[in-house]
Structure formats: C-alpha cells, structure tokens
C-alpha cells in the first residue's frame, strides 16, 4: 500500500488534481478517505494504465471511462473463464480417477 504522495512521485508529471479527479470519478478506488488515501498494487497499476492511455496513446479523458468499462468487462469475463476452467479441471480429474 502506498500513499498519494508516493503515487504522484511515481507518475512523474501527473498533477495531483488529475489523480483526485480520477478518484472522484471512481476510475481508481483507493482505500481510506481524501487526505489519507492508501493505494493497493492493483490501484497503482490501474493509475499507470490510465496515465499511459492518456499520455502515450493520446486517449482523451472523455473516452477513458469507455475504455475502462470495456476492459473491466473483459477482465471480469476472463476471471469467470479461468474459474470455470479450474472447476472443470477438478471435475474432470475426479472422472478420470
């Protein structure tokens, strides 16, 4: 878990107001309250992703929620598939025995 200050330093050049806006838009969802936010590894990676979308790929901020929503759905389904596959492997294993 890292604090907002550390994350801002890591994302060299990102204005604090931008990160605060991302949090209030719920694009990034740290633990804690304003002033004492704590970011887990996944929050840090997500902030990096948004930063890369905006800075390297020139996706403007209006389009970012669309990209995030599609990615969240994609990863949600990939988690479902992985779970279903591991469940299936367990079942298949029993049948073979």
């Amino acid at each position, binding site marked *: 878990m890292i604090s907002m200050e550390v994350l801002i330093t890591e994302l060299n050049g990102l204005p604090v107001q931008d990160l605060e806006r991302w949090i209030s838009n*719920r694009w990034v*969802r740290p633990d804690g309250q304003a002033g004492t936010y704590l970011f*887990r*590894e*996944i*929050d840090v*990676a*997500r902030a*990096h*992703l948004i930063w*890369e979308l905006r800075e*390297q*790929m*020139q996706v403007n901020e209006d389009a970012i929620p669309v990209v*995030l*929503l599609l*990615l*969240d*759905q*994609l*990863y*949600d*389904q*990939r*988690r*479902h*598939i*992985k*779970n*279903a596959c591991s*469940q*299936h*492997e367990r*079942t*298949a294993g029993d*049948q*073979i025995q």
Partner: protein
Amino acid sequence: MAIAEVEDPYHALGVSKTATQDEIRNAYRNLAKKHHPDLNPGNPKAEERFKQVSAANEILSDPVKRGQFDRGEIDAIGQPRAQRPSYRDYAEGEDGHRYDPSDPSSDDWGGEDFSDLFNSIFTKTGRSQSRPSRQGLDQNYKLACDFLDAVNGTTRRLTLPDGRVLDVKIPAGTDSGQVLRLRGQGGPGTNGRPNGDALIEIQVSAHRFYTREGQNIRLTLPISLSEAVLGGPVPVPTPGGPVQMRIPPHSDGGTELRLRGRGVPAHGTKAKGDFYATLRLVLGEPDTALSEFFLNWKPEHPANPRLGLETIS
C-alpha cells in the same frame, strides 16, 4: 545468452533513419495503442511486440541516445528495464474484483453472471476429453549474429524465455533475414500431438571492413604508392584466412581485383562466391625524396587524368 529483442529500433517502429522526432512519436503512439499488454490480455505476441516497440522508443525518442545508436555507440538492446507489473497481472486475479463492472456503487452495467453458461458448456464437452488435441504452435525468435560467424558458420547456445537451452547451428553462408527452423522446439502439443517448431530469424550485423553482396564479399584494400606502381604480392585478409594477392604493376586507385572462390563458402545449392578487393592508394607520411622526385620528374607520356570530365558543361 538469452534471445533479446535485437530488432533495429527504426525497423521496430517502422520509420526511416531520417524520421523526425514527431514521426517517431506518432509511430510509437500508434503501435502502443495496438500492442499494449493491458489491452491484449492473454496475447504473448502483443506483449513481445510492445516490449520491442517500447525499447525502440526508449532509444529513438531521446535525441542523445538516438545519436549514440546512429554512431554505433550503443546497440539496439540497451539496458533491460525492470518490468513494472501491468494492470492485467492483477485484474485477472482475485484482486480484480475491486474493479468489477458490477460494482454495487455504480449502475453502469448489470454484471451478468456467466458461470452458468460456462458450466453448461463444459458439462457437455467435458466427458469426451479434458483438453482438445492440438499441435503445438510455432514460436518466433530473432538472433543477432556476427558477420564472420554467419559467413563461416558457427554454433550458438540460446536460452529460450521458458528456460530451455538450445544449441543452434548457424550454417556457413547464412544471410541476414534467413530463418532457421528447429523442429519440435516450439510450443508443446496436447494429447500426444507434436510440438510446434522454433523459428529463428538470423540478423547479421554489419562488418567494419567487409560488405556482402549475395555470395560475393567486398573489401577496400589500402596499398602504397610503390605497390601501385611496381605491383607485387600483398597479403589480403579474407573471411577464410589471409591470402597473397598479386597486384599488377601500374594499378590505379579504384581498380577492382578478384580472388575467385574466396567469398562466401558454398552452401545448399549456392556455389561459393568471389572476393573483390577495391584498391585505395595511401600516400602515407610526407616524404622529401618522393617530393623531390616529382619536382624533377618528366612523365614519359604526359596525360590529363581529368580529360573525361571536360564533357560536363
């Protein structure tokens, strides 16, 4: 050694050597959008390509590094950077639930549960076999090779990304861009089907002195004034070892002399190539006796060496 991304950074970004910084930035942006690993989960090719593109951008976006690369002071590999975990590494695991589309505080999406769907699919097919039988996939690699190693042939030991070690025989006469196929060394097949192949593209680096044209090799050979006037045997380093070459008396600078069969060795269906030396006159340090000789010298047949240029109007 590991197989690193040794692709020329200009080639990786698809830009020319004379590209402006803007063109490089745009090329990188377009490729990053396409190959970013978080946008391509489960696609190792996209990830590999993204690494190459990022490494190329690392060099070319920085005018100092770009200059160093152009002058040959640094190579295309550079220092590998510590890989930051990508969003995907978390999003697919349990941590990913933090950003579920069905987050109760947002009404963006209904969060349909697909587990029933998957269960029904797997119940139907599960009885027949646990995994489909499939031949392994071919895997592509690139390997940098010295000019002379490629001409004379060599064996290189490689460590693949999955830790396997391969001895790759690079046959004599291998040319840049040639692909070697190592049968059965690619991705594993399932249910007894054969493995895929490892396809290794050889990228031959340039030589300081030699250039290669197909089966022939060229060299610019410096000779002294007396060797040019009087002729004589001079030692010539060829890829196969030093050879004594006879220079005819009165050889001009720019004369091309051939050593038959001393180029790239025969391989496959190709016969061995020739070695061409282009003479370059080197006067060396100033020499008083030589200068005095020319002051007093009356040529036997005075001629104007620039006679041919007079037609330029």
